[in-house]
């Protein structure tokens, strides 16, 4: 009887989850739950994952103090990675929308954006996992450096797609350089 109850509850939860995904997919298509891109302070992010910074703190601080500071840094890194992962998901959706473009160059840029965005989201998930494990015994904060590189690569793809779709904005960036 207990097994029957467990399996029935499992089936009910499964049904709720499946219907939830179906409804959220419908909402996504209607464009009602659009997430926004959240800005990231890339320089601060880079500092957090800088190996030299880790080494400096290790030399200057007592071991227990270093671990405390390093835990704080890992938590901050995790927050950045979560935002980067969410931004990647938003860009993946933008890329999928841009695939509809009749223009071959735009479609190719969109494909690259989707690829890089999904890669970043995947790497962000793994990096978060490693950070949560590292919180137990904090040593270095270099687990996230791959995410930072991916984020910067994604910049290039988003810029290319932006230039192809909306030429006015990238011109402003070029002028800024």
């Amino acid at each position, binding site marked *: *009887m207990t*097994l*029957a109850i467990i*399996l*029935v509850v*499992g*089936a*009910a939860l*499964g*049904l709720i*989850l*499946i219907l939830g*995904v*179906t409804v*959220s*997919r419908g909402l996504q*298509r209607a*464009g009602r739950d*659009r997430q*926004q*891109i959240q*800005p*990231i302070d*890339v*320089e601060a992010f880079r500092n957090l994952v800088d190996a030299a910074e880790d080494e400096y703190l290790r030399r200057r601080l007592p071991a227990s103090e270093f671990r405390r500071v390093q835990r704080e840094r890992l938590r901050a890194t995790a927050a950045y990675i979560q935002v980067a992962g969410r*931004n990647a*998901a*938003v*860009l*993946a*959706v*933008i890329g*999928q*929308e*841009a*695939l*509809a473009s009749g223009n071959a160059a735009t479609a190719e840029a969109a494909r690259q954006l*989707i*690829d*890089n965005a*999904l*890669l970043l*989201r*995947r790497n962000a*998930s793994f990096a978060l996992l490693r950070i949560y494990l590292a919180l137990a015994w904090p040593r270095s904060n270099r687990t996230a450096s791959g995410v930072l590189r991916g984020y910067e690569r994604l*910049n290039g793809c*988003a*810029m290319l*797609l*932006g230039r192809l*779709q*909306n030429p006015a*904005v*990238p011109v*402003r*960036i070029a002028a*800024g*350089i």
Partner: protein
Amino acid sequence: MLQAHSLLWNYLWVGPNLLLLVLAWLLWHRKIYRRIPVFFVFAIVSALGDIAVFVADVTPSVSPVNFWRVDWAYLLTENLVKFVVIGEVFSQVLKPYPSVSHLGRIVVSGVGAVLVVLALLVAAFSPGDSSVHLISGAHLLEQIVFTVELGLILVIFLFGAYFHLAWDRLSFGILLGFGISSCGHLAGWAISANAAPSPHGRVLLDFLDMATHHICVLIWCYFLLIPKRTSIARPLSASGDAVESHKEHLEVWNQELERLLHQ
């Protein structure tokens, strides 16, 4: 009305299978079967197999032992093809996304292996609902299959939702049908195999089982035969709202880039 071999009973057993055969014919006629060949085979195998079990049930000359043998053959064939269909659909979902396809395959294979072990363990602790192994074994097999199937479908849905993958209408419809079907069937077979229901309770569970199958077939008809209004893989046309929102996102991104480049 809710009696074995009533009109409703016979309709729920045969009707959805005839509908599934019509669906298969329409898939063939509209050449949609080329995109989902294994599902096309599944529709035919599942419908004909279930009709064969029905015929074995109502034919007086078929002995109970032979009825259960037919049922076993149908279960094994249908479930084998069903898992190939799930694999085919997942491959189609991942095809446009090479950056996560390898991870997706690893996740689904790993979770699938764990689910099989778990389902076998659960089955080992199930008391079974009959002293005849041919009968209790069939019910336990159903419980194992639907546990694994539901787990796999949930993993695929969650994987797609996490990475915001765009599903094509056919793949989504097929998996949604299987998902709802596995929830209803798992609940039914779990009660049947573990809770020793009364004979009338068993008949009600059969009704639940057949009604779920009917709903599942209707879902497939809707997703596979009715054309989509807007594409899923290429979801938004250049409507005003979409373009504005798109530009807004890219503008925020570009502002970030601009700031980055100035540093």
